[in-house]
C-alpha cells in the first residue's frame, strides 16, 4: 500500500527526477515511522491511516512543483545574467579587435556607426539593469505568492531579453558597416603571414630616409637645419603601384624614437602596412598596438643611438621642432611587397633603394602626419 502511494507520488513528480527521488525517500520514512507509531495491531489499517494523514499525492506534488518552478526560474535568471555578461565581453572584444586591426572608417560611416553604437550601448545597459532588477526582485521575495513572483520575474526576463536582442541586432549592423574593412583585413592575411615568415637579412637605413605618404601620394619631407639631410626626390614614383596590384604590404625595418635609439631590427617582422584600393591608400596594421611594441623593445637589449646614428640625427632635429611629445615614433620602409591580381608577388625594394630607402612617417595614432610646411610631424 505504501509502495503504491509512493509510486503515485513519484509519477506526479516525474518532471524532476532528483526531487522525486528525494521526496520519495523522505515520505517513505515518514509513512513507515507513522505506521510503526500506530498502536493498532492491524498493520494494514495502520498503513492506511498513515497514508490518509499524509494527504493526496497529487496535491503534494503540486506544492513541490511550485517550489521546483521557482528554482528553475532562479536558474533562468542566472542564465540570462551570464548571457548578458557574455555579450558584454564579446562586445568589448570586438571593439578591441577593431582597434587592433585599425579598422578606419570614413566620416559618414563613422556618424552612422556612432548612432547605431549608441542604440547598441543603450539597449545593452537596459538589458543589464532589467536583468539585475529581475534577480533582485526574485531574491527580495516581496511578491505575495511564489507564482506571482515567478510571473513578474519572467516579465523582467522577457524585457531584458528584448533589450539584449536589440543590442545584438545593433551589433550586427555595426559589423556589416565594417564589412568593407573586414574584406581588406581578410585580403591582408596572406601577405602578412608571408611577411611574418621572412626575416630581414640586413638593415640598411639611409640617412634622412624619411618621407611622408599621405592619401596615397608620397611627398618628400624637407629637412630644415640638417646638413646631413639633403632634399630627396618625391617618393610618389615609387609608392604608387600599378593598377593591377590587388594588395601591397610595406615592410618596415626601423623604429625610431626621438629621445632614444631603439632596436631597429626588432620591428622588422612585426609591423606591416597595406597598399591597395583605387586610391592606393596606405593602411597600417598593428600600428595601434605600438605601446605593446614599445614594451617589447624596452624589454630587450637594443643597441644604443650610436648604432643608428644617421637616422637618429635626422629625426631628432624634427622632433625638437615638434609641438608633440618626443614619444612619437618613426618607421622606415624596408621594402614594399605587392600581390597582383594575377597572384604575382613583386617586391619593390630596388625602387625604394634607388629612392634612398625612404621611410614612412606615422604618428602614434596610426595616421600619417603632415604639417603645413610639408614636414612629417612626429
Amino acid at each position, binding site marked *: 500500500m505504501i509502495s503504491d502511494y509512493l509510486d503515485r507520488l513519484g509519477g506526479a513528480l516525474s518532471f524532476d527526477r532528483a526531487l522525486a527521488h528525494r521526496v520519495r*525517500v*523522505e515520505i517513505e*520514512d515518514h509513512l513507515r515511522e507513522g505506521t510503526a507509531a500506530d498502536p493498532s495491531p492491524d498493520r494494514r489499517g495502520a498503513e492506511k491511516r498513515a497514508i490518509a*494523514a499524509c*494527504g493526496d499525492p497529487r*496535491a503534494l506534488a503540486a*506544492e513541490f512543483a*511550485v517550489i521546483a518552478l521557482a528554482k528553475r526560474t532562479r536558474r533562468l535568471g542566472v542564465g540570462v545574467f551570464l548571457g548578458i555578461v557574455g555579450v558584454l565581453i564579446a562586445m568589448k572584444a570586438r571593439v578591441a579587435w577593431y582597434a587592433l586591426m585599425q579598422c578606419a572608417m570614413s566620416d559618414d560611416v563613422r556618424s552612422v556607426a556612432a548612432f547605431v553604437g549608441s542604440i547598441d550601448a543603450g539597449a545593452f545597459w537596459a538589458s543589464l539593469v532589467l536583468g539585475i532588477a529581475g534577480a533582485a526582485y526574485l531574491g527580495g521575495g516581496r511578491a505575495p505568492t511564489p507564482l506571482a513572483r515567478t510571473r513578474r520575474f519572467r516579465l523582467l526576463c522577457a524585457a531584458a531579453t528584448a533589450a539584449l536582442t536589440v543590442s545584438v541586432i545593433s551589433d550586427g549592423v555595426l559589423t556589416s558597416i565594417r564589412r568593407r574593412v573586414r574584406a581588406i583585413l581578410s585580403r591582408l592575411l596572406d601577405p602578412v603571414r608571408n611577411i611574418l615568415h621572412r626575416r630581414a637579412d640586413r638593415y640598411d637605413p639611409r640617412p634622412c630616409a624619411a618621407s611622408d605618404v599621405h592619401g596615397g601620394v608620397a611627398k618628400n619631407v624637407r629637412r630644415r637645419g640638417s646638413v646631413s639631410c639633403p632634399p630627396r626626390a618625391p617618393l610618389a614614383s615609387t609608392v604608387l603601384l600599378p593598377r593591377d596590384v590587388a594588395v601591397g604590404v610595406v615592410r618596415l625595418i626601423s623604429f625610431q624614437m626621438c629621445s632614444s635609439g631603439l632596436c631597429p631590427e626588432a620591428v622588422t617582422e612585426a609591423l606591416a602596412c597595406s597598399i591597395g584600393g583605387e586610391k592606393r591608400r596606405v593602411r597600417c596594421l598593428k600600428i595601434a598596438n605600438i605601446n605593446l611594441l614599445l614594451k617589447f623593445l624596452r624589454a630587450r637589449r637594443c643597441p644604443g643611438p650610436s648604432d643608428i646614428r644617421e637616422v637618429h640625427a635626422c629625426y631628432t632635429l624634427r622632433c625638437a621642432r615638434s609641438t608633440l611629445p618626443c614619444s612619437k615614433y618613426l618607421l622606415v620602409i624596408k621594402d614594399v611587397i605587392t600581390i597582383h591580381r594575377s597572384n604575382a608577388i613583386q617586391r619593390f625594394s630596388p625602387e625604394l633603394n634607388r629612392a634612398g630607402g625612404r621611410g614612412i612617417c606615422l604618428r602614434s595614432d596610426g595616421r600619417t602626419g603632415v604639417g603645413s610646411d610639408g614636414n612629417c610631424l612626429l
Partner: protein
Amino acid sequence: MLKGHLDMIVLAALSSGPAHGYAVIEEIRRKSGQAFDLPEGTIYPVLHRLEQAGLLSSRWVTADTGRRRRIYALTRRGARALIERRAVWQRFPEAIGGLLADAGPRGSPA
C-alpha cells in the same frame, strides 16, 4: 490562517534542535496541544521551500531502522527570521485585542 503561518510554525518546531519531517510534525502537535491537525504531507514542501530560502539546512542520516532520513536544522538566517516573525506575532494579538475591545455592541444610530 494556519497555512499562512506554516513557515513560522515549522521554524518554531525546529528551534529546539534538528529533526526530520515526522519529528517536526510530532513537535508541532505536542507544542500546540494537538490543536494543529494539518495533512502531514504538506510539511515537506514547506521544509523544502525554507531550505531553498536559506532558512533551513538539511543532511541525510541513517536511522536506527536502517532507513535514510533527511534531518533539517535552523540556519542563522532561519533563527533570525523566527525572531522577527515571533515579534510580529506577539504584536498581533494585542492589536486584535484592541480592535475587539472597541467593537462592543452599540445601539443603532438615531
